[in-house]
């Protein structure tokens, strides 16, 4: 695996009223292409901020985020939006689908913001969306609306949407939050399948220890920093980082 994502001296300071909160305190990180990384740590440890910064959603106060050697935070809004659209598939927690659109339209929605030539080939895009939904056993629900789906089904649709533009990176924050154990395992299996079959780089933020079975790399964060050089995975969750 070659280096793919790299952060250098990443800092993020939030201003809350007159107080400033340092969410990231100079994070140096390297993620290889095709890796399956799970970020763990207590609430407020900075994992969501870190992933959000890598995903081009939150501008860091200091430091760089390099994807394939390019500093994404030197891009303008249009370029950055295009980067998010093409390079990254986001998967959100619950209620991440647009309630006014049916399953098919939710899945193809990232294409609205894709380049014009891609948008024109609507038949191909529709076929691709249906094929993805079929892979996720959701082909019978393409005309359903999010409110008619179970939590697990909504996650599947969100996964299909994350994959529709064939991105190289999938970012997911608590993708199995609020799910029962069985559905959680189903979603995790899908993630493993995506990682194995499509060679996507997966970056997951979660509190669930069940991800330890699936992840290739577990990174534990505490107070805006990464823990390093800890071999025991469970201990690592509390203290540092472990690579399998």
């Amino acid at each position, binding site marked *: 695996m070659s280096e793919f994502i790299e952060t250098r001296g990443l800092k993020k300071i939030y201003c809350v009223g007159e107080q400033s909160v340092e969410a990231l305190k100079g994070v140096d990180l390297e993620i290889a292409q095709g890796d399956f990384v799970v970020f763990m740590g207590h609430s407020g440890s900075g994992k969501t*901020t870190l992933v959000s910064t890598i995903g081009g*959603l939150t501008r860091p106060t200091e430091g760089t985020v390099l994807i394939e050697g390019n500093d994404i935070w030197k891009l303008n809004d249009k370029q950055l939006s*295009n980067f998010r659209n093409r390079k990254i598939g986001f998967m959100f927690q619950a*209620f991440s689908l647009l309630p006014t*659109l049916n399953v098919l*339209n939710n899945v*193809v*929605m990232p294409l609205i913001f894709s380049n014009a030539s891609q948008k024109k080939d*609507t038949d191909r*895009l529709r076929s691709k969306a249906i094929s993805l939904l079929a892979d996720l056993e959701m082909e019978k629900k393409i005309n359903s609306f999010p409110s008619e789906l179970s939590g697990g089904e909504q996650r599947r649709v969100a996964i299909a949407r994350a994959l529709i533009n064939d991105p190289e990176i999938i970012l997911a924050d608590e993708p199995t939050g609020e799910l029962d154990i069985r559905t959680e395992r189903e979603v995790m299996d899908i993630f493993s399948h995506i990682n194995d079959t499509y060679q996507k780089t997966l970056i997951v933020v979660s509190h669930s220890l069940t991800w330890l079975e699936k992840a290739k790399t577990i990174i534990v964060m505490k107070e805006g920093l990464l823990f390093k050089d800890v071999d025991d995975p469970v201990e690592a969750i509390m203290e540092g980082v472990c690579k399998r």
Partner: protein
Amino acid sequence: MIVSLFKLAYQNLQVKHLRFYIILISVSIVIAALFASSILISGIHHSLDKGLSKLGADLLVIPKDSLVNMKSALLTGEPSAFYMDSAVLDKIRALNGVKRVSGQIFLTSATGECCVLGNSFLIGFDPSDDFTVMPWVDKKMSSAFPADGAIIGAMTPWELGDNVKFYGIPLTVWGKLERTGIGLYDNAIFFNIKKAHEMSDYSQADKSIKPLAPLKGKISGGLVQLAVGAKTPFITFSILKENPDLKVVTTGNIATSARQTTVAVFSGIIALIVILVLSNVLMINAIFSAVVNERKREIGIIRAIGATRPEIFKLIIYESVLISVMSGVVGMLLGGGLLKIFQRSIVFYLRLLNIPFMLPPVEFIGLTAGAAILVALLMGISGSAYPAIVAVRIDPHETMKQGL
């Protein structure tokens, strides 16, 4: 069909039905009022322009104390009768700068006279020097104006070929003028001035009807057309200098007077519409601000999956464009419908105020409809612009913090 930004905006509108209907109803009412008022005001102006230009006269010369009656007669076709010495016309003709002068005699029909409905406005004109009715005859009719012929206004109850009789003098309806909105043309019946004299003579002889004034050597008013380059104030002064018992009014003055009355009548309505437009813009702003606030998470998701800031702006603006255009169309139909239903009452009310009215040309109504929809569109865009800017500023990371 694959979803588009526009379709997404359309779908979003269907989520909060109540808000959608509040904007739709409120903006529609404003647009209805705006559209109907515009049609009314332009209809008045159109009527004045068309009618007064048809008159072809630069000046009207009438007895000094008959200005009010003349305005009523001219603008609303109120039957009126006033007279002055016809020799005045020859003096005016002799003035330098006067191109043509034509006299007319105004009569009112006898109440209860056989075969005459209501109170008709009768006008005798001299075909040999007339320049208000005869140009129409020359243009539209292939034969010469017969001695016993009558030309009727568009709003009179007769049809071509009808035989009518006033003060015992029979006339045959020979021509019908197109509608102008000016009462003098629309409600009057024109005939040879000789017939007016015959009517007067008949009325003197027939003791069963109220006699007309003796008309020998009399005229109700003179229409004066000036030569190119002639100065209106100078000619007016010259006429009044030799004929102090006369009143000289320009057709422009009459139009201005009617327009001023129009402004007085409609200024309150226009002010109300302006206030309504502004309050609707504020209402749209408040509703869209609430919508954006509620949809922060959704907007964050859309930003995350690749929407640029301008696309978020467009999404919000598209929603306002859709709803405001719909409101504009509904408002325009509503205003047009109400105008159609109440047209008779409105015209009657305007006539009481000496204000003529006729519907403006279809092309103008179309343009006004387009303008009304444009106003609705501008209301929607200006009301939603600030909320759209707020939406643009939404940090997608906020979505993450709420559980991306």
